[in-house]
């Protein structure tokens, strides 16, 4: 087995079967979060990052060029769900907080279990439309990652950036065409979202289509220059 760092604290792992895999160093060795595979290489445990379950992993495998989440990045994560992607993000930043907002109390219950092990995951039960309601918890951050699958998600990112994103910080957003408009051409939708983000203060610096892992999905990365 071979391992190679492709981004800061993100690793390409060659298990010898010809499949391209990535992973993160597990912050909490011998614990799995979502049934992912773990491998040990030279005494270090890596969690294989499943692109079918995480859009960020899919984007990295599909050739993401700008990866703003690094060791030490403070992150605001909108739409944490049960913690699949947040757990890897927490692995990457290591000793920095990942403020994780999730809307649904039921899903939050599962996410709390993940936060028990990864202390740098900060659970916030809240609505990403209302950043003021968690403004007493979240500090200024380097990156906002958003995956809420809502119609107004570009606006939500901008709103949160105004409250919490350092100037020159990054916004990452997973856009699912179908959750914005079922009938419209996805290309059209992505163009619209790009315009909203640009007008709101983001300079888009990367965009990856994550087929075949998810259909009609892109991940956009922008720099906050209000």
């Amino acid at each position: 087995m071979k391992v190679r760092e492709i981004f800061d604290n993100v690793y390409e792992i060659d298990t010898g079967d010809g499949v391209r895999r990535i992973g993160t160093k597990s912050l909490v060795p011998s614990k799995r979060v979502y049934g992912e595979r773990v491998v040990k290489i030279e005494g270090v445990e890596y969690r294989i990052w499943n692109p079918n379950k995480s859009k960020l992993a899919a984007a990295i495998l599909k050739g993401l060029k700008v990866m703003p989440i690094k060791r030490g990045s403070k992150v605001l994560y909108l739409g944490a769900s049960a913690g699949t992607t947040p757990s890897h993000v927490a692995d990457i930043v290591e000793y920095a907080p990942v403020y994780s907002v999730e809307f649904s109390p039921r899903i939050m219950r599962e996410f709390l279990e993940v936060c028990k092990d990864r202390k740098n995951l900060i659970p916030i039960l809240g609505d990403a439309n209302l950043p003021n309601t968690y403004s007493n918890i979240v500090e200024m951050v380097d990156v906002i990652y958003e995956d809420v699958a809502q119609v107004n998600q570009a606006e939500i990112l901008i709103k949160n950036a105004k409250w919490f994103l350092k100037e020159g910080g990054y916004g990452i957003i997973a856009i699912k065409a179908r959750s914005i408009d079922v009938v419209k051409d996805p290309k059209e939708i992505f163009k619209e979202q790009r315009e909203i983000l640009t007008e709101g203060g983001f300079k888009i610096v990367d965009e990856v289509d994550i087929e075949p892992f998810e259909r009609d999905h892109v991940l956009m990365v922008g720099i906050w220059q209000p």
Partner: protein
Amino acid sequence: MYYLIFTSYGAFLLDYNGDLSLENIKYYKIFPEEDIPKIMYDLRRGNLQIVDKLKEEWNLKDGEKVIVEYLEEEPTTPGKFVRENVYTLGKRYGVFNSYEEFIEKTNLWTTELTKLLMKEASERKDKLIIQTVSALDDLDETLNLFSERLREWYSLYFPEMDKIIKKHELYAKLVSQFLKRENYTRTKLKEFLPSKTAKILSKAAKSSMGAELSERDLSIIKEFADQIISLYNLRDKLVKYLEELMEETAPNLTKLAGPSLGARLISLTGGLERLSKLPASTIQVIGAEKALFAHLRLGADPPKHGVIFQHPLIQSSPWWIRGKVARALACKLAVGVRADVFGNYIADELLEALNKRVEEIKRKYPEPRKKTSKKRKEKKEKGKKKKKEDKKKKKKGKKSKKGKKVIGKTSSKW
């Protein structure tokens, strides 16, 4: 201008008119650590006593204008300044010694806050479920009452239809759609009815013994029927809404028991949390409290099942194993409900195990067990007594709670 900025561990009042530095911090308050989750909770719930307390503590005059950023739609510059320095400030005032400690404490406080918010949210959901269940009960009672009235009323004009169309909803629809007897033609009726019934009804319409009524008389009856139909539509909406509520609140229970039975269990116990604390043996008899008391006081047979008797697995089993099936179901329900409270989804495995268990019971007891004739007779006697007792009780119950009897009637689903 003063700005009041909250962090998790404290509050800061900044005097800001242009530039910012730590010198702008006019007052600060570091909260006792054990109070932090509750303070954050109060803020989230819009309970702002703390703001007044701080103003008093800091001797701010009433006329002094203070912007509380937490309540603003847009962020403020002093707020961002504090958010830049959350760790530095905390360290300066002795809340943390290291960044790691900052992270760990924040995790602890927000976890506690989240638990408080979740508890409240789940109680709110329970209340919504309970109200919806009651609204459906009321609606069923009303629908039965109105439907009976419609039948009597319209029977003045077309008495034969009462016997032919048993389902209330269909009856109301037909009245609304056709109204006059001459409209009940076979071809048109076929859209609503199986052809045999269509034939019978159209024939009955032609030779009806009902009295003639005027346009005006009939139009009021139609109006009444239309209202009944719209109540049925409302009922469908409530059922759908309840399904969504249940799916979100208790997916395991919903999968195992179905949304309406699951909701009924929650409403009878007063909440999901309470339901989750009951042993399976109690879940088995929820809704059969009368029989249970008869058992305890009068030594009648213990009830084998309460509302869970409605479950298709029990309904489809032969009578002699229903008690056993009910117990198996109650066991899985108890496990499922606990998983719901905890936030795990395990219903698929539970359902599989349950189905297996039921198959096993069916195999093991292919026919009723023959007891020695004497014992059986004794039992029968006892059973009869119990039934009488129950009937008496039921009658009493009916008077005080009119709705109860009606429930089963309107609703196949309910």
